[in-house]
């Protein structure tokens, strides 16, 4: 690994200040993506600002139907949170499927959302739940946040402080994991609320996480797996790699969507 400097931020403001100090400073939270990337020398930050100890970025609150999850909350905490299990069990379920127990103990919501890996789980939930990504300076709707593979609307030094969403009436998540990495080969999050049905798909799209408008329309009138029978997913928009062809992924999107709807509570 290349040499780097380490700073531990005590507050969000402190983190932003520290971000300005080095030549190429990166925020690190759980480090579950960044550290392996650094080992492979695909990233060589001059400085790291550790966000894991920022109190403002921690904790889960549910009030008046609004769920707020601090960005430094780990996947394990989301998976085991009684509040989240009550407000949106599909999200607990999603968190419980990420990586393995060790990864869930370190990895954080904010890190996953900010990294926007095309096979990460959270972005699909953020899209489907119509979440707001709350940063140190603004609120960004999930629809505007995920802009492409590993790309987001965040500015260079902007920090995600929390994610917020209204608890849905019903939601479900179904994922087909890669057997080795446990990343989603396809993951589909469906959420039904007063304003309609939203479907977020991760792991499958060639441009990263996306909303499946065909499915959303089909489910709006009839929120049941059978409503998806006539809906197609175009393989031309799908990823194709060692683990599965575009055609296979297009099939998986439909299968996972049906299972997510069937599982929705």
């Amino acid at each position, binding site marked *: *690994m*290349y*040499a780097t400097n380490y700073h531990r931020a005590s507050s969000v403001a402190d983190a932003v200040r520290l971000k300005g100090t080095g030549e190429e400073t990166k925020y690190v939270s759980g480090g579950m993506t960044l550290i392996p990337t650094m080992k492979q*020398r695909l990233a060589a930050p001059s400085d790291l600002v550790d966000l894991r100890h920022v109190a403002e970025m921690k904790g889960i609150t549910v009030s008046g139907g609004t769920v707020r999850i601090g960005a430094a909350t780990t996947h394990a905490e989301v998976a085991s949170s009684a509040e989240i299990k009550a407000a949106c069990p599909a999200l607990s379920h999603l968190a419980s499927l990420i990586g393995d127990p060790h990864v869930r103990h370190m990895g954080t919501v904010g890190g996953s959302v900010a990294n926007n890996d095309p096979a990460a789980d959270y972005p699909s939930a953020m899209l489907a739940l119509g979440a707001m990504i709350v940063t140190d300076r603004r609120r960004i709707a999930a629809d505007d946040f995920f802009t492409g593979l590993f790309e987001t609307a965040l500015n260079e030094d902007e920090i995600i402080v929390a994610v917020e969403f209204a608890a849905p009436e019903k939601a479900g998540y179904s994922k*087909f994991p*890669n*057997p*080795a*990495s446990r990343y989603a080969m396809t993951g589909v999050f469906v959420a039904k609320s007063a304003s309609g049905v939203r479907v977020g798909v991760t792991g499958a799209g060639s441009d990263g996480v996306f909303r499946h408008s065909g499915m959303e329309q089909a489910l709006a009138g009839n929120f049941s797996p059978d409503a998806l*029978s006539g809906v197609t997913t175009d393989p031309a928009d799908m990823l194709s790699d*060692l683990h*599965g*062809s575009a055609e*296979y992924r297009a*099939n*998986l999107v439909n*299968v996972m969507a*049906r299972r997510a709807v069937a599982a929705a509570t």
Partner: protein
Amino acid sequence: MQFDKPATTNPIDRLKVVGQPVHRIDGQLKATGRAKYAYEWHDPNVPYVYGYPVGAAIAKGHIVSMDVSAAKEAPGVLAVVTALDVGERKKGKFNTAKLFGGSEIQHYHQAVAVVVAETFEQARAAAALVRVEYAEEIGAFDLKDAMKTAIKPKDVGGAPPDTAVGDFDGAFKAAPVSFDATYTTPDQSHSMMEPHASIAVWDGEALTIWTSAQMIDWWRSDLATTLDVEKEKIHLMSPFIGGGFGGKLFLRADAVLAAFGAKAARRPVKVALPRPFMVNNTTHRPATIQRVRIAAEHTGKITAIGHESWSGDLPGGQLETAAMQTRLLYAGENRMTAMRLATLDLAEGNAMRAPGEAPGMMALEIAMDEMAEKLDIDPVEFRIINDTQVDPEKPERPFSHRDLVSCLRLGAERFGWSDRGRPASRREGNWLIGLGVAAAFRNNLLVPSAARVRLDHEGVITVETDMTDIGTGSYTIIAQTAAEMMGVPIEKVVVRLGDSRFPVSAGSGGQFGANCSTTGVYAACVKLREAIAQKLGFNSEDATFENGEVRSGNRSVPLAEAAGSEGLAGEDTVEWAKLADSHQQSTFGAHFVEVGVDIATGESRIRRMLAVCAAGRILNPITARSQVVGAMTMGVGSALSEELAVDVGRGFFVNHDLAGYEVPVHADIPHQEVIFMDETDPYSSPMKAKGIAELGLCGVSAAIANAIYNATGVRVREYPITLDKLIGGLPDVT
């Protein structure tokens, strides 16, 4: 000791310790994290520094120039040693690819330099600063292309590449039912948990090296050759080894780099190969293309059986002997086998657990299933109909002991084989359910093995042999053997392994380790018994060793007393004479598998597995069972997920780590059962045991493939059986 006659009754037959479910004697050390593996031979007084390898970035060609100036100036760097610095080296006897030295590049990630620094991260960072200019040449990386120019080697490990009996072509054409199909198996990675690692310490011309070697003497000899030092000057140790599966049979680059690095830095140096090097720098099981042809009468009697196999390796390398078992497994008057070697410029192909039989059975045992279906005969019965008690190529040569039929019958009964239905006939919710069977077969190999056994004044027996324990349980079965032979409780036995100062053993490989190394210990114990009897004036023939005493007539003497203050020792080597020529020695079994295949995604899940094994005397049912269960699990990976993907343009394995090479995890493996046939084989050794560790793998993947076919009606002949190969043939869900 010459083992030249079938064994008669001997002290092992008492089975007070041998054959008993004795817990591993190294369990305590391993469960507390105190077993010391190669990379952690910590001596606080030795200031170790760290070597990090640099691998070639091309697959074939030459190094034109190397610039190490930036690396040498990097913080903490003590030495940089390049392949050009050390120049052309003699290659070890057991290596195909050269490990280090000279300008020629034979494969991707061949070691071209080692950077030694004060800390690991300094070495790793500086290694990235080594600049190499290459002259790249066009290589061959695709077996499907290279097989067209494959050659027929002179011999394959002492056996002919081709065999033919009767008139295969004529019989195949004339038969009322015939079958002809081609199967492929991919390149596979041993993927043992411990990466190759070495610590090298020079004292003048003498080298001490801790490493992770299955074969101590092979490594020591080949290291001496590669470094051009006297073998006697090298002290090599591997007391604990974090798995091998064949990946640590032969000298590897970590030992060579550590030795050169330590010489240059004038400090003890430790080098571990990074996980990706384990794939592209070391060895792997080579891919095969296999054609199997079977012809039979309507009764199921095979009249012709043919098996051809193609695999690739670097020039001067070896082929994967995938047709070998077909020479022995089933009857049939007309037969042929042929194996061909293509040139590939990938990393060296070499032995991985059950070389030859593991991929060979993957093909043959699907073919048997397909042929049974064509004949409309139950696949268990089809195999039984074609059992043979003699080598079918040389009928004058019987098997020493062969109980394949009982394995199949008992397994079928225990597994509930009669519940198996027609293909794609059983569904539970989203899951299509199927059962599959395959025979298991692996030869029993015999390798000389020596040991030294000492008795001290406290009555403690110390066994010393350079045998290794790669997880198999060598420590434990050797202790059991010595305890049985000397008539002492196992607590009175100390076993010291994996050290080049000890007598040369069979080592760990080819499932010969257990039988051969314990026989070496048996022979040494016979010598020690003679020494004790002689000292006491007993006739060694009628001396009894029991309860810590030696008894003759009405006189008995405690062993501690017999040892005296000086102690006594016995040392011997077992040599194997011609018994294996007159009698074919093999191990047999049957694998039964139940799978579920998700009708919508094509995902296959194993539901239950059973192996019935006939492998001579089982020296320790706990360690033996664990070997078989572990092998079955490797067979699950081999059937469903394990494949090194070749970049046929650039010439390397792409998925070179555990993020991309998919080995089974806890959640993939369900209920597994193992049954051992109660048998002994007096032709194998005085232990009457045979190998078991590889038998457990041979046939498993085919049983899974056959179960998937039974579940889905989709026949996949290209391993691994991934979802995309199944999905097209599954019934429409909606």
